[in-house]
């Protein structure tokens, strides 16, 4: 029998982590509204001069906690052991992308923090850090897209009377994967819905990530409860 | 070399025909790695012909006799490991083990000579970045040295095989020896190309 000890602690840490993420999101001065890629180098430099502290503290928070996604993804990977698969391939796929996905965000926070470290440097350099941060943050979705795809496939193939995750969770993951796709094109334009501050690349993408977390947390909570009951019954 | 007469082998290689020494797989490695090395050599030779004088000047800083000495040391290690294979085949594992240590000893002498040579050149101002010739010199000798270091691991496997009664596998012994010989003949080529070619 699989051990579930401690899983509830990881699970209930999620709301706490989520609150920190939301706090960091609101604390960062460049998200509401998102900074425009059309800003001149001077304007970008002035932004970091004027908001140095808020950039630093919000990004330190993100730097600490973006990788808190990994334990959550590992809870999902553990649930996948119960799926009616003949091989652990899809679980390995999920583990394979679980590390890289938050590391992409971690890299973005490093560029933001660098931008705010010496805001009095030549504006072109601050703009470079700002671009690197935003492109990494916006376009750095390949591992999230793959994660949703792997989960969707895993759920579809979990053909048993009481599947680990309901079928609609598979559809939901597929939908989220599609919602994340436009963000990959954020480098192509400085304006419009695809730009990094645009409707698709910023709002749809980030709302999709938030929605995915909420929905998967609810589904996960239910499954963890079921697993614990099974463990108690067998004990 | 006084041990030669004592180590007279009763095992005759002639009797064992139609047998791939070390198995096919290690030969795949030897032949593949030979191709990779040949491609490096071709690049070197071509560039050499395009900058003949500069290469000759760089080459004049090498000590040919040191290269010859290194070659002889490595050839001796090959000879020792060849004897090791024959002793193992005849069931004389203690002697085979001694030959394996002798092989590693010669390998170590080669490594020390190599390091002495590198240090000498670096003191003379010839480094990886100092001239075209020494780019190739340090690249080829260093990548060969990496093969040599892997070879020490391989010899470790060989000694381990010969030490335990239950795990003595002649194929593995031959595989290890084949690897070591390939390190030897890669050096034979590198030596000719770096020290002698004009």
């Amino acid at each position, binding site marked *: 029998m699989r051990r579930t000890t401690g899983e509830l602690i990881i699970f209930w840490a999620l709301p706490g982590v989520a609150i920190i993420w939301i706090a960091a999101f609101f604390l960062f001065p460049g998200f509401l509204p998102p900074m425009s890629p059309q800003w001149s180098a001077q304007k970008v430099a002035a932004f970091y001069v004027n908001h140095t502290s808020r950039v630093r503290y919000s990004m330190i928070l993100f730097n600490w906690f973006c990788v808190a996604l990994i334990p959550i993804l590992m809870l999902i990977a553990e649930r996948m052991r119960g799926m009616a698969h003949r091989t652990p391939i899809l679980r390995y796929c999920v583990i394979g992308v679980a590390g890289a996905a938050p590391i992409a965000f971690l890299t973005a926070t490093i560029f933001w923090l660098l931008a705010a470290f010496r805001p009095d440097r030549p504006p072109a350099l601050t703009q470079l850090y700002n671009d690197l941060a935003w492109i990494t943050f916006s376009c750095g979705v390949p591992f999230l897209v793959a994660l949703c795809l792997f989960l969707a496939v895993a759920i579809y193939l979990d053909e048993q009377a009481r599947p680990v995750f309901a079928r609609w969770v598979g559809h939901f993951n597929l939908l989220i994967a599609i919602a994340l796709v436009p963000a990959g094109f954020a480098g192509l334009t400085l304006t419009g819905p695809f730009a990094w501050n645009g409707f698709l690349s910023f709002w749809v993408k980030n709302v999709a990530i938030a929605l995915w977390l909420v929905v998967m947390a609810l589904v996960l909570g239910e499954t963890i409860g079921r697993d614990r009951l099974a463990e108690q019954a067998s004990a | 070399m006084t041990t*030669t007469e004592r*180590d*007279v*082998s*009763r*095992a*005759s*290689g*002639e009797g*064992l*025909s*139609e*047998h*791939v*020494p070390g198995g096919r797989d290690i*030969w795949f490695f030897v*032949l593949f790695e*030979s191709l990779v090395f*040949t491609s490096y*050599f*071709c690049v070197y*030779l*071509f*560039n*050499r*012909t*395009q900058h*003949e*004088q500069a290469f*000759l000047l760089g*080459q*004049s800083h090498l000590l*040919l*006799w040191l290269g*010859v000495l290194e*070659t*002889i040391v490595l*050839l*001796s290690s*090959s*000879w020792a*490991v*060849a*004897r090791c*294979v*024959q002793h193992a085949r005849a069931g004389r594992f203690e002697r085979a083990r001694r030959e394996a240590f002798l092989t590693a000893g010669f390998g170590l002498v080669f490594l020390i000579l190599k390091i002495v040579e590198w240090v000498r050149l670096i003191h003379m101002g010839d480094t990886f970045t100092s001239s075209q010739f020494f780019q190739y010199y340090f690249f080829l000798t260093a990548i060969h040295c990496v093969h040599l270091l892997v070879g020490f691991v391989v010899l470790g496997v060989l000694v381990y095989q010969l030490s335990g009664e239950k795990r003595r596998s002649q194929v593995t012994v*031959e595989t290890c020896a084949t690897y070591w*010989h*390939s390190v*030897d*003949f890669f050096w*034979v*080529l590198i*030596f*000719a*190309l770096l*020290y*002698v*070619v*004009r």
Partner: protein
Amino acid sequence: MVENGFNKRLFGVWLILVAISLAYLGIDRAATHRGIPTASTVVTVGAICFAVVKVRIIMREFMEVRTAPRVLRLLTDFWVLLMAAAMLGVYLAGKAVA
């Protein structure tokens, strides 16, 4: 005695290989003019040929290809020729270009 003869064979092989290596010292003298090395196609071709011959001897004798199946004997010989042809070909082509 077979056993004696056999070990002598390995020893002989080693002697030949060492002799070829020492012969390089002589070749080298031929291409050095007043302490300064000079370019020489003959020396280059000779050095490569000698090296390749040594490789073949190592393969045949030390690596026991001599008693291996025909396929491996042919394959290693082909490989030795391939390596020699590639190196000499590139060298001579480079000479022609330069």
